[in-house]
């Protein structure tokens, strides 16, 4: 916020994405973090072998989401009757009239968005990991995956499962299907994956490969 022209030297500047404070970007030591002085947002957090680890985690997310969507998720028994539901059944359970919209939103937030996000990350980071030039539109793909982040709600759905289990407990007997455990693992991996990714490092890598 000054009207002095920014000197055009070789140093890179970084503006804090949440409060706009301007800094000279200097790479912190491995495992260290650069934090905005004004609003305490983490600006840069490089880690060793980050992109390789993210690619590995991303691959497992893809496999787990696909598997968890089709295998039985929860089973219920009461008075000799039984029913089982997969994640896709859960997501498409609102069938009547206007409630279809809720179905669409549920499918999107617990299956489609997490899957699409990981595929986009794979597209962006895959070539960088093996030291090749980024694929066309890699920047746009990365930006889109960042914008999708708040709409991927796997961990919220996990807590929703816990609440639902308590609600049914006295109505019927419940059993967990294989997809339930895959989903539990998936939630943990998604959280680790997000914690490991340093946005600035990815943009920086994309810039370097371009020049």
């Amino acid at each position, binding site marked *: 916020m000054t009207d002095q022209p920014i000197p055009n030297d070789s140093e890179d500047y970084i503006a804090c994405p949440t409060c706009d404070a301007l800094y000279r970007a200097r790479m912190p030591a491995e495992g260290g973090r650069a934090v905005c002085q004004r609003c305490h947002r983490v600006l840069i957090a490089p880690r060793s072998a980050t992109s390789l680890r993210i690619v590995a985690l991303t691959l497992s997310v893809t496999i787990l989401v696909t598997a968890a969507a089709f295998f039985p998720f929860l089973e219920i028994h009461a008075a000799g009757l039984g029913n089982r539901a997969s994640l896709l059944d859960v997501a498409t*359970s609102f069938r009547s009239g206007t409630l279809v919209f809720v179905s669409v939103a549920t499918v999107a937030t617990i299956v489609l968005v997490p899957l699409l996000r990981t595929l986009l990350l794979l597209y962006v980071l895959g070539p960088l990991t093996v030291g090749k030039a980024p694929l066309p539109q890699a920047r746009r793909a990365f930006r889109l995956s960042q914008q999708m982040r708040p709409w991927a709600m796997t961990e*919220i759905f996990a807590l*929703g499962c816990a609440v*639902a289990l*308590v609600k049914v407990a006295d109505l019927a007997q419940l059993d967990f299907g294989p997809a339930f455990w895959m989903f539990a693992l998936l939630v943990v991996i998604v959280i680790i994956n997000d914690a490991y990714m340093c946005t600035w490092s990815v943009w920086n890598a994309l810039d370097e490969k371009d020049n």
Partner: protein
Amino acid sequence: MSLQRVWAWWIAGVLAYIPANTYPMLITETLLSNDASTIVGGAVEIARHGDFVVAAIVLVASVVIPVGKFVAIAYLAVSIQRGWLHGSRQRHRLYEVTDFIGRWSMIDVFVVAILSSLVQLSVVASIRPGPAALTFALSVIFTMLSAQSFDPRLIWDSEDEDKDKNEGRPA
């Protein structure tokens, strides 16, 4: 300009939140009874069974968080329109909390989805979603969009302008 979008989504969110609380969220049909419960009614029922922790989770996710979010966004938007200078740090903190916590309101929608897909045992017990499931989901989505339209940099802008003025530089 960006505040107009914040207010538009905010109003849509508040409007959708009203029917979300008055209409039933969950319709449970068993051999003996036919019961339609609203969001708050469902939480009260869980508490009556003795599961106070789960009842508290439901109440926090579907009442405390949405209402708190409406108040927080309105407060932040008004503070910027009035050009308040103080407490930028606290207001920024409030924005971060609001932005982070809003998605968790979706819990109740997911609970309804799980229950109504799973509990389909013909006459013994079946659970159907009520109209509030739609309006509640819409309300959560609208308020998330409202919080995302809010540009936290505006919180610091008035402080920067003030500093520039005091130092005799053009703002």
